[in-house]
């Protein structure tokens, strides 16, 4: 039986070493697939075909299965995020307090749907399933920063600031 030799790193980008580190820590076990994909996404911001192929080959998981996992979980993204990300929480408490109106207003202002990025690559609009800050509903996250009791005006102001940057 020949010993398994993992494929070489896709490029000399240092971030691949971080990805490889996660796999090594887990002994290149197949069950480390999700953990490794998390590392790729936190290092690169998203998962592209090269990354998925590299991880699948390294862990000896069929490419179809790796792709299946990536598309099954909402957290993984196949597209690079914009420079800034506005995330509107659409959990129950936020919804009751008008999150749907916030989402509609942001969509109208940016001219994109949820999960999309403006054509200039500046702003991504995401909708979260609940960030657990329900007591301050409705909540929006500007680049991950939680802001509670969000109003349409406050949100549009933030979008304007990003747009003129």
């Amino acid at each position, binding site marked *: 039986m020949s010993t398994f030799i993992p494929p070489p790193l896709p490029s000399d980008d240092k971030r691949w070493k971080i990805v490889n580190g996660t796999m090594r820590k887990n002994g290149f076990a197949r069950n480390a697939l999700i953990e490794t994909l998390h590392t790729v996404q936190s290092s690169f911001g998203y998962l592209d075909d090269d990354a998925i192929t590299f991880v699948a080959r390294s862990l000896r998981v069929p490419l179809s299965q790796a792709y*299946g996992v990536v598309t099954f*979980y909402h*957290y*993984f993204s196949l597209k690079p995020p914009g420079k800034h990300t506005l995330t509107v929480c659409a959990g*129950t408490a936020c919804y*009751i307090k008008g999150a749907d109106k916030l989402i509609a207003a942001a969509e109208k202002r940016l001219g994109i749907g949820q999960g999309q990025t403006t054509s200039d690559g500046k702003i991504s609009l995401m909708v979260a399933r*609940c960030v657990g800050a*329900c007591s*301050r*509903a409705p909540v929006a996250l500007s680049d991950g920063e939680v802001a509670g009791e969000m109003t349409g005006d406050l949100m549009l102001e933030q979008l304007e600031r990003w747009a003129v940057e």
Partner: protein
Amino acid sequence: MTIEELEQIAKSVSQENAKYDFEVNVCMDLACASQGAEKLRDALVKSAEAAGKSVLIRRTGCMGPCSSGPLVRVDPDDVLYKRVNAGNAEAIVGSLGGEPVPELQCDLSEHFEKQVRVVLENAGHIDPEKIDDYISRDGYKALLTALTEMTPNGVIHRITESGLRGRGGGGYPTGLKWGTVAKAGGDMKYVVCNGDEGDPGAFMDRSVMEGDPHRVIEGMALAAYAVGASKGFVYVRAEYPVAVARLTTGIREARRRGLLGNAICGTTFNFDIEIRLGAGAFVCGEETALLASIEGKRGTPKPRPPYPAVSGLFGKPTLINNVETYANIAPIVRNGGKWFASMGSDRSKGTKVFALTGKITHTGLVEVPMGIKLREIIEVIGGGVPGGHTFKAVQTGGPSGGCIPAEMLDLGVSYDALMKVGSIMGSGGMIVMDDTSCMVNVARFFVEFCMSESCGKCIPCRAGTAQMHTLLTRICLGKGTMEDLDLLVDLCGTIKETSLCGLGMTAPNPVLSTLKYFKNEYIEHIVNKRCPAGVCNIEAAVPAVPVEVLA
């Protein structure tokens, strides 16, 4: 680590704390932190230095009444301040040793009076990143006592005696589950903590993991000792980065102190914990789906039996409990099963943490004894509905639960009572709705959630939720017919009875409960083409949250 060493640590912490004249605790939970609690803490440190006072400034987990945040509690006087910002730091430090600052004082005695704190006993009192703080409040005492003085069966007996039931929502007797795993054969067993708090509108588990991580670790270690497991996994949502960080620190500290690892407390008991990140799939709250996800696969549920207790993670016997269940274990082992069973109602013992949100004055985390009336939670603890609006319904159990109308507010909160009225206990989200909430729209919101979260494995759930969504959208747009209602009821029955896992089986609950208690609102939409709450945009006919239907 021995019990004597543990007591030594507790003693040195209290000696250290006694050096200070005052303690100022700053809540650093998400709600307070997002309103500048970090800046406030820095300002307090600076002010204390400038004033030359000896003050211990501590960052703590969630204190409870989030709507009054950022919160600060001054000890030993036990004065609570609300809506504090960095600019108030000087006034607070100046008041130490004298009269409290009147304009910041927070009088929530009614809010706290009815609460009983077991799971949240340390919340607001310890620094979550300091294991010694936890130890100073009897932390890890239960684990070491159990390891040295109790048999595994003794621990299980104590949990059975307490009457504790699963806090993830199912309500399965915890002692019974532990007993099954303990009896299962095999040399390798796992203990898994379900921290995949997916219910939108619930954040109890997040607060416990962030505010008191060692409580979860100790509960898991006790469980592992009782069932004979040597390896544990905590499955946490990736959306909770702070919880992940706190647990990581907690596990590292516990290892350093010899409370995790090999030969814990000089016994033959070995146990260690690893963290696994979720990736945003609600269905992973279901136990078999969660295990698949830990194994690195798509989170799709499997038919049971075999139950995870017999064949779970990697095919080995596995114990799965929710964060809050584990958080109850240490106090039960420490104080005895009878103590726990003395709280709560007939078949639901102990306390329950609820995340009180929506149209209510005091939003936040509350812990109440089981059996307490919903009215007391909403009107007394929660302070009622603000803004002159009237209470319409309270939603429990998230997308698997139902809406309970005003006439049923005198219901005592227990697993069985909530089930009887068509809702469920769930993990503990409690969302209050007033006259500005449309119940048809709320039902549609939950069905839309279940539709997009359905894993797609079984047809009743995958196609059924999509059909329910179509019908509800039609009604919301004023294009529904009375026949649609009959069809909806029929469809709900089919989905309930034929779905594979809990997600599908409970997905119709929000529809059935609103149809039962608020049928007039459905009829109003259909017959008179108007939305009584003014939420549904019947004219424009644009769905509020457009989604792709993948049936």
